[in-house]
């Protein structure tokens, strides 16, 4: 049971690390706290469900559509909203209020558009046969979801470290003022990162029915809370920190489910508490902030 819990926790954690990636990117570049992050994940889930039920489109294909669609939506949302926030005296606090409102609006629209019932995808889409590893069988849907998540995390890493926009984004993460003074296109870079962050959230949403069973309008809040915990555990503003935070979260949840199942709900909050007390900058905090 221990081996199964650890391997399943890694698969689960890789997905959740990917799910939190967009939140971390947006916060790192814009110091904007996106409380609607989980709601964008849910919207991605609905997109996958509708695409599959209406056109039998495989969720792996829907990933591309989700990214493009939500990148465009976020890009359009950026210009009337984010520059005003970043120019304000307290962008974090204002973003909390603004994105909390946006979260409520999205949830209400979800109820109107999709109803309250949980919506799901057949796990067999990702393959009916289980994956055998170390004498244990794992759901193929989890394995494929974790692989896709890893690929997307890798792609994000390459984007940040080997593209012009990525360089600019990392420079802005270090110091927005110095990046602007150096002549970097701060506004355009921020807009793109905002689009990428929301696009990644929607992509994680496409995969979410395979990991969390189903999505409904109220799922977003819980996902936002988990994403925050993961981001704080790993490191604020560090995309790689999301991956590490996701792994710590995933393995901890699965071990708790195995040995103290009634308490498994407490995992994100306990981890958050421990990290805030023991290493407030997160597990990878120091390296990134000084990079």
């Amino acid at each position, binding site marked *: 049971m221990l081996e199964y819990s650890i391997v399943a926790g890694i698969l689960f954690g890789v997905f959740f690390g990917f799910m939190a990636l967009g939140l971390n990117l947006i916060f790192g570049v814009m110091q904007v706290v996106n409380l609607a992050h989980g709601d964008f994940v849910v919207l991605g889930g609905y997109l996958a469900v509708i695409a599959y039920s209406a056109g039998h489109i495989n969720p792996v294909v829907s990933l591309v559509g989700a990214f493009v669609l939500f990148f465009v939506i976020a890009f359009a949302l950026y210009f009337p909203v984010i520059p005003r926030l970043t120019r304000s005296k307290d962008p974090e606090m204002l973003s909390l209020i603004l994105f909390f409102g946006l979260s409520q609006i999205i949830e209400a629209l979800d109820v109107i558009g999709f109803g309250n019932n949980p919506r799901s995808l057949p796990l067999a889409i990702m393959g009916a046969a289980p994956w055998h590893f170390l004498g244990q069988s794992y759901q193929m849907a989890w394995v494929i979801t974790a692989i896709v998540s890893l690929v997307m995390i890798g792609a994000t890493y390459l984007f940040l470290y080997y593209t012009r926009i990525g360089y600019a984004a990392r420079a802005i993460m270090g110091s927005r003022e110095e990046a602007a003074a150096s002549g970097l296109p701060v506004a355009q870079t921020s807009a793109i990162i905002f689009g990428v962050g929301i696009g990644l959230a929607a992509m994680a949403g496409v995969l979410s029915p395979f990991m969390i069973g189903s999505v409904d309008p109220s799922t977003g809040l819980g996902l936002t809370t988990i994403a925050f915990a993961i981001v704080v555990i790993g490191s604020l*503003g560090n995309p790689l920190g999301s991956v590490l935070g996701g792994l710590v979260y995933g393995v901890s949840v699965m071990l708790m*489910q195995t040995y103290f199942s009634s308490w498994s*709900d407490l995992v994100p909050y306990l981890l958050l508490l421990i990290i805030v007390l023991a290493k407030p900058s997160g597990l990878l905090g120091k390296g990134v902030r000084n990079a």
Partner: protein
Amino acid sequence: MNSRKHSAMIVGLSAAMLAGTLAGCGTSTSAAPPTKNISDITIGTLYAGSGAYATSSLPEYAGLKFWASQADKSGGVFVKALNKKVPIKIVAYNDQSSATTATSLYSQLISVNHVNVLVADFGSVLTSVAVPVAEENKMVLFDQSGTGTTFFTPNNPYIVLTSLPNSGLWPDSLAQYLIGQHYSRVAILYDTNDFDQSQEQTLVSKLKAAGITPVYNSGVPTSTSSYSVLLNNISHANPQAVIEFGYPNNDISFLQALKASGAQYKMVFTVFPGQLPTLFTTSDGPSSINNIYTYPAPPLISHAHVNYGMNSSQFIAAYKKATGQSTNFLNIAGYNTGLIIQKTLETANSLSQLSLRHAVSRFSGTIETLDGKFQINSEGAQTGETLPVGKFTTNSAGKVSVDLLTPLS
């Protein structure tokens, strides 16, 4: 920069956690008139317009509204205390599935709206906060589907369970079936809430009385959505029967994970496919409940003898005509609550709350509705209805049917 970020994150988390507890949106409300000049009977209730319980709460509320509209079509309900028919008016607030919000809204219904009759929202979680509020304010709580055993105590006369038996009684038929099938290796997975824990406790005690100790028995938070590791742990116990007590979202995720795991057991039981089969078949296809055992509830089963209100087929037709919607059990539960309130008003000598409660005791055991026999014990818990065990079968065309495996009553 870092300290700013951390303070922002702490505030962010606080805001995220508070989000689920903020007040709900109201609907139409008005204060009830003084008893002497009563022109309508005001029924106060809550519904979950969003959140985890909306799936179940909204159809139950729709059933109650349907009853009120049917009653008002015929000029209202007969109120013995007034010796005349009086229209029904429903005052309802949206608690958004939040128990915290529900607490203040129940108080508001009593102290601001001065409702004549108080009806709880769906399920044990949202009813649990109504029980002390009603008792403190000496209002009878017509509890539709909050079946947790802890709600019913000898010292609290202010509660009546209308549409489901006390959850401690639910597993009676299940235990009988398991014992009858000689299943000696039983695994139980339950959510840690009043509704599911009551069932787990009853089932375990009945199995132990028959010399069966569950090979796996574990509780999980109600918010659990990932069941793979739990199922793997269950498989190590090598059970013949796997029993999962959860809410609809839990059951969906559990059955999905079970299907994906490829594990096979002689018997897999979950609660809500019997009440909301369409939710499961639309979510993951008809095969998702094929060979699943459950408690089938009306309209999947039909009570032959009905002496109060519509029977199943009449209800299905009338509900479809009025709302355009198909019927599920929770519509029937809401309608049945209305019938119990109607009978109470027909029976009570005055509109005082204790008179209403005494009236319920007087007609208890004498009426049979489309939901079964209505009978309460001295603590207000439903004991007349029984929940049989049934098994779903899906044919190649995707048609779902259920076979009863234990007697209906």
